[in-house]
């Protein structure tokens, strides 16, 4: 591939395979493309948001093999073979493919008004699912701490914690 000394645009692309929201796709991607930009600019999965592009705000959080990850800090080529879930695929995690219902965390966010402008919301939702997968956070304080990588400038934090607790309690029944 080309280097910074010449005409620096990467001439090379790499073929990778990603399973995104249950659909396996073969994609030719340049090495400088982040997972976030791949999703938003190439695959029209704009549900995943870019808030800072520096891993400081959490708006780009997606699930990679079930783990929450800042997709702006990940080059797409590094995730060859991974299973990616974005906000568009959350409902599919909880339900049969093709049914139009929401994931319980999505329903809880609506019920508890856990967002206002909605821009950090996809990241908050994916982060919430990741947090529940991790299984460490139980108390309100622990949830608050473990959700602090996702900034909500509208200030819906208390409602976000309410929504997560609601779903955790429901799941624990």
């Amino acid at each position, binding site marked *: 591939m080309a280097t910074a000394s010449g*005409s620096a645009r990467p001439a090379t692309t790499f073929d990778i395979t990603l399973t995104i929201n249950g659909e396996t796709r073969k994609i030719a991607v340049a090495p400088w493309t982040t997972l976030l930009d791949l999703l938003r*600019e190439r695959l029209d999965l704009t549900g995943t*948001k870019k808030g800072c592009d520096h891993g400081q705000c959490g708006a780009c959080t997606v699930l990679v093999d079930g783990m929450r990850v800042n997709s702006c800090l990940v080059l797409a080529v590094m995730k060859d073979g991974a299973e990616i879930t974005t906000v568009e695929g959350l409902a599919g995690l909880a339900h049969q493919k093709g049914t139009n219902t*929401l994931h319980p965390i999505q329903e809880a966010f609506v019920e508890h008004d856990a967002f206002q*402008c*909605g821009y950090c919301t*996809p990241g908050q939702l994916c982060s919430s699912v990741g947090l529940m997968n991790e299984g460490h956070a139980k108390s309100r304080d622990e949830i*608050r701490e473990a959700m602090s990588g996702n900034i909500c*400038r509208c200030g819906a934090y208390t409602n976000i914690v309410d929504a997560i607790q609601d779903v955790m309690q429901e799941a624990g029944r």
Partner: protein
Amino acid sequence: MTQTFSSTGRDTYVGSARSRVDGPAKVTGLAKYAGEFAAADLAHGYVVSSAIASGRITSIDTSAAEAVPGVVKVITHENRERTAWRDKNYQDAVAPPGSPFRALYDNKIHFSGQPVALVVAEDFETARYAATLVSVSYKAETPLTDPAQAREFGYVPPVKRSGIKPPPKPWGDAEGAYEGSAIKLRQDYRLAIEHHNPMEPHASTVVYEGDGKYTVYDKIQGVSNSHDYITAVFGLKKDDVRVLNPYLGGGFGLGLRPQYQLFLAMLAARDLERSVRVVLTRDQMWSLSYRPDALQTVSLGADEDGTLRSLRHDALGGTSRYEDYQEVVVNWSGVLYKCDNVALTYKLAQLDTATPSDMRAPGATTGVFAIEIAMDELAYETGIDPVTLRLRNFSNTDATADGKPFGSKELKSCFTQGAERFGWDRRDPTPRSMREGRELVGWGMATGVWESMMMQSSAQAILTADGKLEVGNSTGDLGTGTYTILTQIAADTLGLTMEDVTTKLGDTRLPEAPVAGGSWTAASSGTAVMKACRNVGEQVFRMARQMENSPLANVEFDRVAFTNGRMEVAGNSSRSVSLVEALKAAGVEKVEATETAGPDKDFNDAYEAYTHSAVFVEVKVDEDLGQVRVTRVVSAIAAGKILNLKTARSQILGGVVMGIGSALEEESMMDHRIGRFMNHNLGEYHVPVNADVYDIDVIFVEEEDKANALGVKGLGEIGIVGTAAAISNAVFHATGKRVRNLPITVDKLL
């Protein structure tokens, strides 16, 4: 109309707790924001930002960038297409007086981070990379960015900013009364520069439709403002440009004015006759605008029983060198407190920065923070409880408006209900009197105030033969809940379910409404939607009356109630006609109406209108580390009719959280030697995160107001006002340290 604060057992949607109608779109990722709309053959623009704050560009070399395969064009001041030359073409609907900034206009640099080139490429990564290859040489001058240094050049703005009240003329003899007062307090207060930092970076997607026509998706709090800016600047006809912005990823005031990424995207799209998207980076968001620093002095003279004898509030706010940005900083002191000798002054100082802008409760956040700490200091000086002191000096009329009465002012209920919920009567006022382990505990309170405004707004309503109703106008929903409350109002007005109603916003093809700001949208667009729906209702009623053997024959319109999709004679539900039947009988597919609502002149001549709050705060301060936690907040709000308890509460929560940021975290640090904000990222500019926010309790006290038919006053700003002062006052109670210079970082407590 009586207020219903119960979320169950409602008769109307208005006044109940309703989930957002745009919720499903937002939790599934289907809600699209300005930088997310697709277009065929879309080119990507990346901004090159100035490295200096003041001076000029001596040369700019774009050859290396242009040589990168995939780069379409690099646009600079040297090769840009011509645009309008008169200032008035660049002055948008909320521009302060002056000469608005023009991107890539000439070689002059007005502020650090000013755009100096736009690199347009086939894809985002190429544009970003090529932007690093643009080589710019400057002749730098020494910037002046510190208001304290600029103080000696302070001036009273010669041209008033539209909609912003200058300070009233002084009354009594503030200085003389101060000297003669038993108790004298004079202190300086300062709030750090803050940046709005909405989560969605500013973005514009300009879709070239061919034939000189453009569809523009712009991050703006009201698309009409962008539309009129574009047509004036680029000399386009009204119908050549359509601007849309259905969703806004936060605004907080930064989306009031068209920002430079819109200009650049339009410039490139015109030049290339191609669709172009420009998205700013997070650090470039620091170059747009900010909440100005203000140097404030508050002087209070009082009797020993706390009665105010003299009140002076002086402020000097920063602005740019090219526009006189103005906000209401000092007037609030004269609105809140009764005093016979008052002097309020407000000056500006020009700095080598971009023009500051409105940021959530502009001016009030700044000024009320100062007066409300000063009042707490007076409470300690006199040994009077802070709530009692405020009641002792309570204003029943607005002295800043020649003593006009308030349309409504239930601030006393805010004090009572807030104090009760908080447990204020258990407070020992002695500083450092409460402790939990290694943390000192403090309780503080403050008052908040914001203007209640209404702006002329139009809205349309269209009822179709299937019984579905669509309402809307061009204003924006910043996350405030506008979609939802308009849906509630429309459903109630025509007796439909919320599911029957669709609200559309953020499209210049819809009737014109102003930018969403100043907490005026609920009153303005809400009233316009209600009027449009009533008009539709009246038309449908006339159709129903003309039906053969109409049950509504000989009934006057004012005796008809709209309920359950039907028009029925009030008190006689057996005499009714459904809306669908009426349209069918008349053989029409749809009934539509557009109505305009505006401020009530008679009301405004007679009354002044404000929202109020009482904020009670508990802090815990780690004595060894100086770390402050805001563990409990009770915010009691008097804001007229509450349309939706759920979204209204969220508005206040959001204001309180931003107030916590203002009090403890937010500070854009300027390196005055080079005139540049140094912490221009979310890692170093701290905003509250989830772990910073504990319990927040919101109370809406009952308040009847007649400024508009809905009785609504607006909620977007009031939640932040007073919050920072309450926190600072609580920190004093906890630690005995009075912090008048926000944010209260650990260094100020150790």
